[in-house]
C-alpha cells in the first residue's frame, strides 16, 4: 500500500523540500490535499520518493514549487515521471487570464434590453413571415401544379385526424363542467333550463373554437417547430435552396393549408362534443330530457352565433401554423436551440390565440353580433 501524499522540509538540509507517497488523483483528490505551508522560500524540491504520479499530482507539485518561489523546471523526480511533469509545466506556463465575467447587474439589465429589442424584432419578423405566407398562398392558389397535395394530405392527417380523439374528449369534459357550473348558480333561481342557453352560447361562440385552437397550438405548433428546426440544424433547408427548391412552398404551405382546412373541422367537432357533454350532465343530474334540451337549443341558437365562432378558426390556424414554422426556421444548429424554439412556439401561439380571441369577442360585442 503506497503512502499518502505529503510534502515537507528536509530536516537535514534547510531550503530543501521532500515529496513522498502516492500523488495520484485517488489519493490526492478525495481530501483537498494541499502541501503543508513551508517556512520561507525553498530552493530545491526532491520528488524522487514519489512512487506514483498523475497529472493532478504533477499540477500540485508545480503549484507547490511556485508557492515556495522556485522554478518548477528544477523539481527533481524519477525519470519515468519526467515527461508528465514537462507536459504539465508546458500547459501551465504562459497561462493567460480568463476574462472575468460581467457583474450580475450588468447581465440583468443587458438581458432586459435584449428581450425588449428582440420583442420588436420578433414582431417585425412575424409580420414579414405572415406577408410571405399570404403572398405565396395567393400566388399558388390558382396554380394547381404547385400544390403539394401529398404533403398537404399528410399534414391533414397528422394535425387533424390524429388530433380528433383528444379534441373530442377534452371538449366533452369541458362541456360537462360548464353545465355543472351553470347549474349550481342557476338552481338558486329555479332556472336550470337556462343551462342549455349557457352551453349553447358558450360552445358555439367561444369554447368550441378556443379549446380546439389551444389544443392544436400545443400539439401542432410544437411539432412544426421541431420538424422544421431539425431540418434546419441538419442543413436540409440549405440543401433545398441549393437545389432550387423554395423551402417556404415545400414546408410552410402544406402545413398552413392543412391547418386552415382542419381547424374549422376540428372546431365543429369540438362544439358538438361540448354540447353532448353538457347534455349528459343535463339529463343525468338536472332532469332535463334530450328532447327538451334539443328544443331549447332551437329557440336559443341563431346562425350568427355559429358564424361568430367559426370565423375565428382560420385566423387561429394561420397564427398557429405561422408561428410554428417561423420558430422552426429560427433554429440555429444545436439540439438545445430546437428545444428553446419549440417552447417559444407553444408559448407564443397559445398566448396569441387567447389574446386574439379576446379582441374578437370585444369587437363582436361592439358591433352587436
Amino acid at each position, binding site marked *: 500500500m503506497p503512502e499518502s501524499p505529503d510534502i515537507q522540509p528536509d530536516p537535514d538540509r534547510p531550503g530543501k523540500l521532500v515529496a513522498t507517497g502516492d500523488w*495520484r*488523483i485517488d489519493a490526492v*483528490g*478525495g*481530501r*483537498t490535499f*494541499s502541501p503543508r505551508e513551508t517556512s520561507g522560500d525553498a530552493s530545491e524540491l526532491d520528488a524522487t520518493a514519489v512512487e*506514483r504520479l*498523475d*497529472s*493532478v499530482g504533477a*499540477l*500540485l507539485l508545480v*503549484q507547490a514549487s511556485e508557492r515556495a518561489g522556485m522554478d518548477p523546471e528544477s523539481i527533481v523526480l524519477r525519470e*519515468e515521471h519526467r*515527461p*508528465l511533469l*514537462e*507536459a*504539465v509545466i508546458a*500547459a*501551465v506556463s504562459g*497561462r*493567460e*487570464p*480568463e*476574462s472575468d*465575467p460581467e457583474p450580475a447587474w450588468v447581465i440583468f439589465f443587458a438581458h432586459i434590453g435584449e428581450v425588449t429589442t428582440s420583442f420588436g424584432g420578433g414582431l417585425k419578423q412575424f409580420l414579414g413571415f405572415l406577408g410571405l405566407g399570404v403572398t405565396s398562398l395567393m400566388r399558388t392558389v390558382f396554380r394547381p401544379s404547385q400544390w403539394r397535395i401529398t404533403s398537404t394530405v399528410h399534414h391533414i392527417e397528422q394535425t387533424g385526424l390524429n388530433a380528433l380523439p383528444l379534441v373530442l374528449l377534452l371538449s366533452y369534459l369541458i362541456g360537462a363542467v360548464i353545465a355543472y357550473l351553470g347549474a349550481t348558480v342557476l338552481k338558486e333561481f329555479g332556472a336550470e333550463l337556462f343551462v342549455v342557453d349557457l352551453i349553447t352560447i358558450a360552445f358555439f361562440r367561444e369554447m368550441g373554437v378556443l379549446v380546439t385552437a389551444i389544443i392544436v397550438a400545443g400539439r401542432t405548433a410544437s411539432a412544426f417547430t421541431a420538424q422544421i428546426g431539425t431540418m434546419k440544424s441538419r442543413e436540409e433547408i440549405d440543401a433545398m435552396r441549393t437545389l432550387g427548391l423554395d423551402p417556404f412552398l415545400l414546408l410552410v404551405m402544406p402545413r398552413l393549408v392543412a391547418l386552415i382546412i382542419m381547424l374549422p373541422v376540428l372546431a365543429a367537432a369540438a362544439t358538438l362534443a361540448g354540447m353532448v357533454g353538457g347534455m349528459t350532465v343535463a339529463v343525468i343530474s338536472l332532469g332535463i330530457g334530450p328532447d327538451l334540451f334539443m328544443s331549447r337549443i332551437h329557440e336559443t341558437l341563431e346562425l350568427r352565433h355559429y358564424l361568430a365562432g367559426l370565423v375565428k378558426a382560420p385566423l387561429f390556424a394561420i397564427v398557429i401554423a405561422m408561428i410554428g414554422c417561423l420558430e422552426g426556421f429560427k433554429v*440555429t*444548429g*444545436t*439540439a*438545445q436551440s430546437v428545444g428553446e424554439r419549440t417552447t417559444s412556439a407553444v408559448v407564443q401561439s397559445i398566448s396569441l390565440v387567447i389574446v386574439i380571441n379576446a379582441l374578437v369577442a370585444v369587437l363582436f360585442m361592439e358591433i352587436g353580433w
Partner: protein
Amino acid sequence: MSDSISATDAVVKVRGLRNQFGTTVVHRGLDLDVERGEILGVVGGSGSGKSVLMRAILGLRPPQAGTIEVLGERIDEGVTARSLVRRRTGVLFQDGALFSSLTVRENVEVPIKTHYPDMSTELRRDLARLKIRMVGLSASAGSKLPSELSGGMRKRAGLARALAVDPELLFLDEPTAGLDPIGAAAFDELLATLRKALGLTVFLITHDLDTLYAICDRVAVIADGRILVAGPLSEVQDFDHEWVHDYFHGPRGRAANGADQPGS
C-alpha cells in the same frame, strides 16, 4: 507506470462477443485483446461494427453473448463493475459529445465532480484548465460554449473531458474524421505526446490511414463479424484478405505508406 504487471497484460479482453440487431448479426464470436500501454487502431469498412464494439466494451450496449473484461472487471456483470471501470476510462465520441448547455471548462469539470466530489473547487478549476491547455486549446476557450467552437476544437475539448480524471484507458471514435490534414496530424501528435506523458492505453477507431501509420502500435481489422487479424502494421497489411488488401494497397493506402517510409 506499471510496476509489477507483466508486459502481456491485457487491459481489455473480449471473448466470443455476439451482437445482433434483429436478424442482422454484427459480431459473431469476436475475440480481441488490448495490451497495456499500446495504441490499438481498429479499422474496418463502414457498417462492420467498429462503433458497436466500442459501445459494447463501454457497457452501453449489452451483448447477446460473450464476455468482456475491462481493467480486470467483467463489464457485462452488473452496475458496480461498470461504475468502477468508468472512473478509469475516458471516451471521446465522434463529434466530441460535449454537453451543449455547459461551457468547455464546466464540461471538463463534470467527470472530476462526479468521481471526486470532495475535491476543492479551486483545484478542480485548475485541473480543468490544465487539461484544456494540455490538449492544445487556449485558456480563453474554457469559457466558451461548445456551439461557439469549430469541429477540431470540439474534438480537443472532448479529449480534455475524456482525460479529466487521468484514465488508464482511452477510447477514441474516429478522432481525426472531419479535421483538415494539418489538424489531423496535430491531433495525432497530441495523442502521441499525451500517451507518453500520461502512460495511456488507447483504443482507437479510425478510417485514417495516416493515423495508423503515425501512432498505432498494433492494428486490428474487423470484417465478417470478427477480428480478421490483429498485430503490428507490417504484419497486418500483408494479410491475405480482399478488404485488407484493398484498404492497405489501394491508392490511398500506398500514398500514406509511401509518405511514412522516408520520415520517422
